[in-house]
């Protein structure tokens, strides 16, 4: 028998050294503002607008804000604006 001992080639990832948990969710979307963040690619806008309309049917007084930076990935100022103005955010890269 031969025992081969080798070193693992896989490196730890920087971001996992300070990993974060997702935020607590609201119990309901009644009265909430939903942000829809579009990367600008075909079909993603249709998907997001559909999601916004459906949420307005299912919950009371849902406001929908639509954002796009016109490109993928969305520029930081667009994400910041959506985060500041909305209670929850949905994104679609169309992939």
């Amino acid at each position, binding site marked *: 028998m031969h025992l081969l001992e080798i070193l693992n080639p896989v490196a730890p990832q920087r971001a996992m050294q300070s990993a974060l948990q997702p935020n607590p969710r609201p119990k309901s979307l009644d009265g909430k503002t939903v942000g829809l963040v579009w990367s600008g690619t075909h079909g993603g806008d249709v998907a997001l607008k559909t999601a916004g309309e459906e949420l307005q049917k299912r919950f009371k007084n849902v406001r929908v804000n639509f954002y796009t930076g016109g490109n993928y990935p969305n520029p930081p100022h667009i994400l910041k604006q959506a985060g500041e103005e909305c209670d*929850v955010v949905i994104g679609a890269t169309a992939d």
Partner: protein
Amino acid sequence: MIEVEKMGKPAIPIVSGRFEGDAVASSRAFGMPDLKWVIVPRIYRNLAHDLCASQTVAAMDDIVKILTASGDTSSRKTGPEPTSVERFEGDDRWDAVLRMNQEFMKRDLGDGFLLHPPTKQAVAALLKGTRLAADTVVCDMPPGFGIATVEKIAVNAALAGAKPEHMPVIIAAVKALSKVGGHGGKSLLMSTSPNAPLLMVNGPIGKKVGLNPRSALGPGRDNEINIVIGRAFYLCLKNIGYWYPNQMDMDTIGTTRKFVMCVAENEAASPWDPYHVDQGFKPNESAVTVFVTDGELDVQDQGNTTGEGLLKNLAYGSTFGTRSIQDKGGGERLIFIPPDVAGPVGKTFTKKQAREFLHKHCYHSLGKLIQYMPLKGEARVAKNWKWLENLTEEQLLQITVPVVDGPESFYLAVVGADRAKTAVFPSGPSPATVGIDQYLP
């Protein structure tokens, strides 16, 4: 969406089925492994609008669950963190090496070919090839931003069968990737298009380690070192940069250019300063440049003998592909010019003049170049191109434009053996060059 979560707001992406692996890998790379998302079956981008809407409606229960407290709050099983040492038993050493290869193939840690065992002895020998300590962090390697210590680079170089004298080149190439425009080319590396790094070495180290500057991109004996260094870089990109297929490498079809190669510029046959001198290095210094290519075309020449004739053929042959009308600009062309083209061109053109000539003559129909991206329903069209939306297809076809934005978007290097066959690579974002000498023993 992780950026929004970091602001304290719940956020979810809608992800198509094939991209779930990408979502898992990206959530780890960007520091929120338990991010939730909603899966829809098909990619929206080429889907009719009624189908975009209907598959979203079908996903609404999931969207509501994940956006509200009624959803799943469990942690995703991400697997154990990698151990530093692994052991494989076999009937003999060869059998143990084969078992290691079977296991690494199962975990997709290689390139599909037989891997050399990265034993402690092999890695220790490679570490003698650089002055840097084993625990030195060279960079966080894109696209997954694994921590590229010199030791991890050496482990992957050992897998590739590299030698100690290759280490300074490999380390510099890893560093260079992290400096490529746009977060180390993160978006391009993760793209569904076949973007692949290509390495080019300048300076005395190319000859010293045996890099082939002639027929430099093929298989076989003459390119042993070109292959080994390129392979070591690829394995670093995979196991340090997390560039795993169907996770952070999302190619639609893929490309053999992802078997990364490292060439040397054929400086002895060039009429111009070497590429790295254009980047501010001295001729007797060594440097490596990382380009990210998106294709490859042979532009043949069957009889032009003047610089102007050869360059016009090259300009016309470089008009293929698409042209961006986004804010990001019009793309780039990396051109490996063989000595039989560079020699005559160099008699009448400086490199700067050659780039200007190429830009002036590399024109094409705008309508053909932008057919890939219908203007309506597209938010990525830059403001200065919005006027195109009012034109007919016929009008768009009649407009001619330069294929790239300016002369600076042509990157010229002399590579190749005798014969006037030029290799043109659509490329981008901007390449990065890093000095090698700083990593010598």
